[in-house]
């Protein structure tokens, strides 16, 4: 390009090309950008605005300052939902990751039919949460469910899964782990394959045993993938909705209601859209904080790799 700018005519042409590139670039992103502006950016600001009002489709819409946020502090249901969300995340994310790591470690070898095993574990991920939640409801059925049958077969007592406040959340966690395992495993597998061979070879030559290799090489080098999975896992689990809505509707007696479920319920069942927006804003802030931590970490991590 430097050559082109050295002479008169090509330079002119180069500038013309730059201008068309500029214009084309803008035109190419215009549809997507316009779409985001209308259907994401503006709605986010509107949501913040609504959160300061008592808006309801049935009436109202007065500015009430931060009253929704104050109300949230004393709203027992909000705290229950927050607690449930945390409990759900606390179990779902680490258990999924631990199982996935274990599987990825054993699958990462010369394995006949690797594709089939991988497919078996990944398949739950492609199916809709809603459809699969319906299947699990049937499996968790108190009277005729296959899970209670297995429990009894093992000499344990049958459990009232989705109808008892104690067991409803574990049931949803079990389903979520089942569904999320495959995707997490595939990422661990890919990350393992990104570890250069020479590290293993060098360790071998130095006389390291399997356990040392795992703790000193594999695990530390999987740290970025682990962190990535933890963060995306948390962000996803903080927004859990579909499975809750289908399997328990937040019940029994609010034992499984989550923040995302509360937002939906407040807005579309109790028509308190102002209050629901305030809850949504809080959820967004939490998700935003996790993401920012993630970006910071990933950046510092870039020089490491």
């Amino acid at each position: 390009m430097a050559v082109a700018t050295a002479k008169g005519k090509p330079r002119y042409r180069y500038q013309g090309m730059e201008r068309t590139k500029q214009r084309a670039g803008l035109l190419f992103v215009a549809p997507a950008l316009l779409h985001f502006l209308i259907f994401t950016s503006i709605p986010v600001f509107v949501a913040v605005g609504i959160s300061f009002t008592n808006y309801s489709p049935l009436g109202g819409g007065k500015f009430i300052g931060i009253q929704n946020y104050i109300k949230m502090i004393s709203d027992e249901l909000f705290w229950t939902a927050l607690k449930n969300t945390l409990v759900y995340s606390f179990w779902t994310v680490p258990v999924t990751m631990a199982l996935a790591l274990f599987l990825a470690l054993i699958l990462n070898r010369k394995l006949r039919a690797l594709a089939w095993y991988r497919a078996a574990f990944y398949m739950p991920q492609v199916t809709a949460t809603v459809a699969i939640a319906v299947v699990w409801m049937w499996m968790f059925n108190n009277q005729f469910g296959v899970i209670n049958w297995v429990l009894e077969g093992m000499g344990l007592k049958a459990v009232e899964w989705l109808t008892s406040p104690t067991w409803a959340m574990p049931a949803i966690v079990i389903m979520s782990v089942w569904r999320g395992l495959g995707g997490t495993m595939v990422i661990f597998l890919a990350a393992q394959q990104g570890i250069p061979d020479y590290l293993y070879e060098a360790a071998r030559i130095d006389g390291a045993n399997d356990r040392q290799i795992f703790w000193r090489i594999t695990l530390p080098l999987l740290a970025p993938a682990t962190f990535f999975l933890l963060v995306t896992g948390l962000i996803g689990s903080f927004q859990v909705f579909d499975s809750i809505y289908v399997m328990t509707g937040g019940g029994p007696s609010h034992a499984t209601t989550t923040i995302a479920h509360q937002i939906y319920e407040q807005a579309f069942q109790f028509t308190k859209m102002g209050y629901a927006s305030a809850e949504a804003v809080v959820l967004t802030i939490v998700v935003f904080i996790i993401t920012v931590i993630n970006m910071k970490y990933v950046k510092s991590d870039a020089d490491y790799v």
Partner: protein
Amino acid sequence: MDVSLAPRPVSRVAAPRTALGTLRQILFYLLLTAFALAWMVPFIWMVSTALKPEPEIYLFPPKLIPSTLVWANFVKAMKAAAFPIYFRNSLVQAVVHTVASVFFGAMAGYAFARLKFRGHKPMFLLLLAKMMVPSQVTLIPLFLLCKNMPLFGGNDMLGHGGTGWLNSWWGLLVPGAISAYSIFMFRQFFQSLPRELEEAARIDGASEWRIFWGIMLPQATPAVATLSIFAFQSGWNSFLWPLVITTKDQMRTIQIGLTVFRQDFNVQWAYLMAATTLATIPMILIFLFGQRYFVKGITMTGMKG
């Protein structure tokens, strides 16, 4: 970007040379296969229930293999609710989402990667921000926007008096049509392509559109395949938005239909499982045939080797 998951030879899993080694190998495969099969139980159970005669559903202990296969359950399930309509709507939604996301996504992703137009940085940040925004926060404003869409669904110029985009194709399809994720992925992909062809075409005087459509996009076929699959999946499986925007059978998607069917009727498990089977089959087929694209996509998401 090679993300194939071909097993990487690691010396510690060299082929067994002793009888004990062979035994361990067999045991390993048995355990792994058992685990993989256990992971398939929900699918097996779903299909088994869908094919059972009514009385066998309510047996305890449950029967895995039905005494006769009642294919009629599928036919009856289709008639028990407006499932054909739900399927049609889901198909339309998934296809439109796929086409829009891939087309506009490729266009914008290409522009962000190659046409460094003025303002591309802040615009790209806006895009990243969209990926962080939880869908719950835009849910209420989007609902209100659709409901008050001027001049639609009986609304006047100011968006009052009618139902706007509620229960319409517009409302179902437009707000979620373009995904930021797809743009992001296309940008990553186009950045990895060599520049020579593009520059040569530009010198030859090809228009920017021709360069994109005729030269760059054909090279992006793997990305197009991967992102089409992901877009189809997210369209077919989407739940929260169709849940709030549709209230009439005429516009409901399959996931909503399943939930409604579960709530409305005195749950007929055989029909419900038959419908669920049909709702999951499209995704499972796409997955089985396009497995490598799924794996490619999921590893592209976070891990770049």
